[in-house]
């Protein structure tokens, strides 16, 4: 029999391309978590007293909390005492000075990941903060951004150089007590990026942070804080990857965005943590709290995420719409293949008058994966004239995968308008055959169909990264054809 059946399952195998390990001497604290470890981290970072106390308060609260289990994901219990909470490449324990001081092995690592740190290199219009395990190893274009008054630096530097801004804004959107993982992060966070855009400034370039987990048996707990002062604009992108390992590694980050009056923050994520192998062994547990507050009138926060990696994703980038006429947006493509589990979505909290939110979620499930959209649209009594539009589409690519939608709507103001649309479809053998009959290869056909499905989200990404995201999607769904 010559006409071979085209098994869609065989098209969606996965090859992880960023799974290498950099062989570098690290300063890693022994596994375990207690107040001494937190004091040690704080001391290593040369933190002021208020921050140490803030961490300890978070830690003590965390001890009273229980791991959340309401998400549609399953995993073996995490032993929080088996994780090392601090690991830094040795040469860098004092923080990077200039690119010339950065270990060539680290530069080579980022080069290999497609994120060259030399300022003349490919991403000419993009400033990069490179975070390796627990520390930032390099930040590019600092001077040029400085001329515009923009602060873009490792979180550790911000602690020393801008303590007043930090004290004012840190934890003001995601309090230390917010949830189990946010509390843990608040206690042990090590580095991350800090951004401040002054009044009326349009940030002259894209800002981006590339997170890399390298050391084994560690967790990455970074913290990002972006403050857009009145009338300012910024577009920020984060990328991430990790080596292939058989054990699960925990990534529990917190991202806080604050948009003041008339400010505009666009936050894009291309998440490519190691997803585990085709049998579901290994991979990153990505338990992340991301929230932005449109604090001022007419402000806007837009989240765009392309989630292809991680064994488990638990993340709900949200907007608190406090300012009048403020706008929150969430555009998401979440791909789950093999035994990956994704439970992701957003919360839009309407507080101010005439606030608007848009949610577009595209979930793609393949192999034995489970992909859930979970979203909350909450309109408070004060949110006169609030509007929300939600669109949730799921694409199934195999017989064994699942797509689930959990939309929650709470409306406390009768003038609000809330719309929800949802579809679930199977990638059509008909669509695939149509493309093959026009001469496309199976891989190209699958990519084309999936890209078409994701189009409304991809067009929200900054141009440089839209191509990257499309390629990543292709890799995530690539398989041995023929």
């Amino acid at each position, binding site marked *: *029999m*010559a*006409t*071979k*059946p*085209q098994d869609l399952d065989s098209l969606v195998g996965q090859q992880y391309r960023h799974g290498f390990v950099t062989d570098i001497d690290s300063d890693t604290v022994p596994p375990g978590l207690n107040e001494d470890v937190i004091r040690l981290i704080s001391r290593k970072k040369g933190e002021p007293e208020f921050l140490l106390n803030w961490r300890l308060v978070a830690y003590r609260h965390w001890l009273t909390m229980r791991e959340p289990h309401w998400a549609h994901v399953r995993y073996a219990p995490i032993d929080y005492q088996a994780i090392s909470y601090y690991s830094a490449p040795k040469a860098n324990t004092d923080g990077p000075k200039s690119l010339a001081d950065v270990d060539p092995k680290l530069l080579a690592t980022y080069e290999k990941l497609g994120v060259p740190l030399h300022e003349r290199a490919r991403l000419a219009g993009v400033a990069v903060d490179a975070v390796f395990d627990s520390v930032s190893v390099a930040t590019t274009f600092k001077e040029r951004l400085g001329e515009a008054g923009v602060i873009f630096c490792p979180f550790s530097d911000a602690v020393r150089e801008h303590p007043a801004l930090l004290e004012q804004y840190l934890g003001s959107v995601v309090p230390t007590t917010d949830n189990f993982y946010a509390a843990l992060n608040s206690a042990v966070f090590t580095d991350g990026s800090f951004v401040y855009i002054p009044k009326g400034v349009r940030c002259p370039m894209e800002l981006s942070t590339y997170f890399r987990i390298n050391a084994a048996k560690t967790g990455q707990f970074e913290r990002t804080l972006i403050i857009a002062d009145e009338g300012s604009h910024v577009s920020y992108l984060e990328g991430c990857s990790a080596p292939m390992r058989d054990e699960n590694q925990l990534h529990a980050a917190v991202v806080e965005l604050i948009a003041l009056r008339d400010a505009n923050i666009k936050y894009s994520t291309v998440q490519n943590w190691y997803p585990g192998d085709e049998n579901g062994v290994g991979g990153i547990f990505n338990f992340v709290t991301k929230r932005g507050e449109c604090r001022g009138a007419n402000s806007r926060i837009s989240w765009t995420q392309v989630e292809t990696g991680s064994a488990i994703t638990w993340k709900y980038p949200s907007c608190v719409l406090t300012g009048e006429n403020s706008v929150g947006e969430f555009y998401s493509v979440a791909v789950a293949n093999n035994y990956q589990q994704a439970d992701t979505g957003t919360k839009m909290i309407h507080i101010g008058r005439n606030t608007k939110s848009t949610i577009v979620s595209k979930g793609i499930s393949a192999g034995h994966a489970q992909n859930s959209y979970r979203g909350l649209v909450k309109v408070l009594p004060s949110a006169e004239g609030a509007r929300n539009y939600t669109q949730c589409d799921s694409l199934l690519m195999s017989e064994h995968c699942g797509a689930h939608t959990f939309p929650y709507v709470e409306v406390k103001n009768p003038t609000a308008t809330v719309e929800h649309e949802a579809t679930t479809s199977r990638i*059509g053998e*008909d*669509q695939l*055959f*149509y*493309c*093959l*009959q*026009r*001469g*496309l*290869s*199976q891989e*190209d056909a699958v990519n*084309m*169909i999936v*890209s*078409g*499905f*994701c*189009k*409304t989200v991809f067009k929200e990404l900054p141009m440089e990264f839209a191509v990257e995201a499309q390629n990543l999607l292709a890799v995530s769904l690539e398989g041995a054809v*023929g």
Partner: protein
Amino acid sequence: MTDTNQSELLLEIKDLAAEVQGRKVLDGLNLEVRAGEVHAIMGPNGAGKSTLAQLLAGRSTYKVTRGEVRYRGADLLSLAPEERARRGLFLGFQYPVEIPGVNNVYLLKAALNARRREQGLPEVDAFEFLGLVRDKMRLMQMDDSFLSRGVNEGFSGGEKKRNEILQMTVLEPTLAILDETDSGLDIDALKVVANGVNSLKRADRAIVLVTHYQRLLEHIIPDRVHVLAAGRILKSGDKSLALELERRGYDWVRHEASAA
């Protein structure tokens, strides 16, 4: 017809039998199509006409149980569907599928370049391609908005069929199989589609029309007409056979065949 016997034998089907989920759909089908010819395959509903078209294009739903198919001398059934397409076999679908978010032009350019690579020709760039496709769109009386729309997305039945023929005129296949291209078309659209097909008639190309009705054959004149029923070709003739079928239906062909 004698001169065409000298031309290349493009498609040769010998004693083809196939089934889908254990049910026989083709049973001992023979057919020869030479370059330069237009064939019409007619027959009652459920006779296996669409099965034949889809099977030739490589649809995996059908299991071949007997016989062979040669396309330009090669074993067609051993080729993957995309291989068949790149070698110039085109299927105009009876029900063209919608692919949301994928631009018409994007798919068509990828298709053309896949074919050109196979032919050892350089790929066309976006600019050349746009010029080419605009010419063909004029022929098919399609307006520019088509360029920015998704593949068959929100198209009416007639627009979908027109799009199939547009794709065919761009891809310039060696063997075009058009499955019920006339169904769902009003008379004006039928003429446009027929013009598109006629514009492709050439000495080195063959066209196989799968149809229920004689009316398409008033606009595209076939060299050979075949009656497919019960999974095989029961009768073949020239264009007058189509007229006779229109007048008398299909039953007499079946009786004649079972008597023989």
